[in-house]
């Protein structure tokens, strides 16, 4: 069972209660959502008309939609008219001047996770000026990418600079009317990343360092679009093992990936938003729509996610396998503790011939939490020779938590193969006793067992990150034994 007052939870709470003060005087629109708000928002961002119209159409659809009720999560209804949909980025003057002004307990967590100093400053929202390392790192990064012809910029910039790409691809994988939260995102998306990898280019860098440096204020309605042209490759890493601060409770992000012939996109996520306190108060509601389109022959999309944060996680990174011989993969570790609720999984939609998909999901529940795997494997009649392998494992810590597995299989095609395996296990007292006899503290013992449980997924993470992920698990499960 999770002990109530761990250090981690305490400082998470402190940090959030000490969160940013919204800057009302300047660039903030009033709460609520209507056409006027969307027009103002778009005007503030100086967007071209096609985006404004796209937003307005999405808003019209959203007005007719209802929040989905099928997920295994409970929360009080969200009042969408009480949310502020646009506020300007914080000015440097409002931020802490140096790490000396930041909550020491927060810094301790960064230490535990081994976050480098300059990243600590970014994450803690310290006002970083142009002399700092981070900026020069970012500049070098940009140069290297530019030489390779890779476009990597905020999506707001791409809307201005690359309208032909945006028009061709925005909303193509996740249409604005796809679901309630996708429609909301399309209407009000704040910003996000845009990546374009030209034909035959292997992106020379993991798109991670740069992102982490620039991740401080991504906003609550993030929208990301990644396009991999024929024969290209890109690995993109979103998020950070460090707990992220945000004053907004509702997050509704959309991520769209498009892989053309022989292209490969590897998308890794570490999600560690504020999970709420030990009583289940507060915490981020994370309603995310992530989908990849394997449009081309032999294209490949892999999703890897480590989900430890948020009060509610509602997220199903999916792949539409349209090209023949396309490959879709989903590797997931979802950790819930206290009163966290996670309903997460994937959809693999097989359309092309001989398409293959692999699903490997590891759910870890502690405290009073609820952890649900929900996955759909669909074999269309056109998907001759398609194959899927699904493995869902759940690990329970203590007696107060629960784990569910909802695998949906729609197989219309006889020549396809769908395999599903599921296990649920508890960390056995005998395992802990054995490890303690070998000198490990109970928490170290739990962390070791959990890391073993997650190994197959961690191996999918970019190298440097796998180490951090291990530490993250240890920090996340602090106080969960005893």
């Amino acid at each position, binding site marked *: 069972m999770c002990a109530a007052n761990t250090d981690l939870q305490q400082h998470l709470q402190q940090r959030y209660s000490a969160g940013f003060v919204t800057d009302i005087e300047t660039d903030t629109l009033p709460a609520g959502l209507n056409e006027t708000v969307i027009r103002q928002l778009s005007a503030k961002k100086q967007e071209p008309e096609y985006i404004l119209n796209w937003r307005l159409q999405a808003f019209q659809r959203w007005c007719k939609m209802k929040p989905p009720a099928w997920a295994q999560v409970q929360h009080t209804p969200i009042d969408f008219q009480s949310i502020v949909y646009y506020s300007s980025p914080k000015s440097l003057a409002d931020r802490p001047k140096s790490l000396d002004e930041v909550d020491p307990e927060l810094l301790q967590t960064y230490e535990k996770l081994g976050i480098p100093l300059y990243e600590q400053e970014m994450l803690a929202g310290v006002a970083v000026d142009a002399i700092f390392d981070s900026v020069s790192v970012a500049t070098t990064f940009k140069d290297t990418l530019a030489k390779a012809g890779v476009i990597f910029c905020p999506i707001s910039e791409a809307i201005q600079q690359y309208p032909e790409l945006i028009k061709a691809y925005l909303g193509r994988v996740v249409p604005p009317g796809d679901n309630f939260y996708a429609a909301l995102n399309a209407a009000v998306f704040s910003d996000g990343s845009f990546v374009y990898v030209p034909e035959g280019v292997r992106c020379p860098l993991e798109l991670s360092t740069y992102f982490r440096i620039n991740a401080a204020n991504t906003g609550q309605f993030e929208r990301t679009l990644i396009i991999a042209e024929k024969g290209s490759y890109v690995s993109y890493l979103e998020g950070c093992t460090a707990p992220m601060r945000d004053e907004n409770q509702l997050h509704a992000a959309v991520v769209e990936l498009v892989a053309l012939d022989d292209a490969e996109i590897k998308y890794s996520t570490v999600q560690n938003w504020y999970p709420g306190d030990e009583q289940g108060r507060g915490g981020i509601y994370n309603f995310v729509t992530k989908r990849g389109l394997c449009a081309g022959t032999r294209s490949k999309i892999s999703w890897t996610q480590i989900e430890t944060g948020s009060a509610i996680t509602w997220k199903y990174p999916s792949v539409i396998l349209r090209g023949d011989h396309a490959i879709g993969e989903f590797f997931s570790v979802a950790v819930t503790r206290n009163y966290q609720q996670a309903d997460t999984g994937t959809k693999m939609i097989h359309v092309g011939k001989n398409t293959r998909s692999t699903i490997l999901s590891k759910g870890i529940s502690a405290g009073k939490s609820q952890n649900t795997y929900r996955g759909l494997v669909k074999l269309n009649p056109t998907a001759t020779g398609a194959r899927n392998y699904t493995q869902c494992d759940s690990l329970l810590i203590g007696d107060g938590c629960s784990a569910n597995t909802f695998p949906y299989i729609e197989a219309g095609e006889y020549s396809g193969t769908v395999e599903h395996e599921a296990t649920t296990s508890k960390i056995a007292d*005998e395992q802990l006793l*054995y490890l*303690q*006899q070998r*000198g490990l503290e109970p928490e170290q013992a739990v962390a070791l067992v959990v890391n*073993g*449980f997650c*190994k197959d997924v961690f191996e999918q993470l970019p190298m440097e990150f796998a180490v951090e992920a291990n530490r993250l698990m240890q920090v996340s499960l602090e106080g969960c034994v005893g």
Partner: protein
Amino acid sequence: MLEIQSLAVSVANKTILEAIDITINAGEIHVLMGPNGVGKSTLTRALLGDTGYTIESGSLRLGGLDLLPLSIEQRAHQGLFVAFQHPVTIPGVSNLQFYKAMVNAHRQVQNLEPLDAIELLAQVKQAAKQSGLTEDFLYRGLNDGFSGGEKKRNELLQMLLLSPRIAVVDEIDSGLDVDALKIIGQGIRHLQQQGTGFLLITHYPHWLEYLTPDQVHILLAGRIVQSGGVELADQVANQGFQAFAA
């Protein structure tokens, strides 16, 4: 070094062991013998600190330090090692990763820096060789898919890595072939020469040709009915435990 005095142990309010007296000095080998169900495993559990086993009376000291208030891992840090009859399996955690966690947990308590990877690997390879385990074992999951004999060799390997002050070895001889028995006998002798004191728990002394016990204790119905030299083991071998029944 390890002093067990008038120890009484109960499980779920039922007394299992009474008046246990054993004193093991550095480099001594003690053998605790008894048929199944007399409380041998209960003694192991009580010594290592399993909270499911209640100490009703008596004392337990290691090098003069009272072990009873200490947790399982604290007792381990004091140099108490238990080789289990049925070691657990932990999938996904490689043996090497586990040894590293184990060795460094001990070093941390001693205020030593964690062992660097090269030094650790050197020590592990040496211990693996002494335990008759090939290197590929190091990268497999902890006891995952190991045969009974391999698991016990793995217990020996860990014991060699830690060089404990006292090792309680629970039925390590059961189900072992002659080669494995010999290797484990050699391993124990090696540690004995370095000063480790042993409590070997067994229902039959398979390994007497490899080891010479300093004392043999006969456990029947929760009590030590007789303690003496190696001749007691011979008596068990010839006449069974009935010879000791009152």
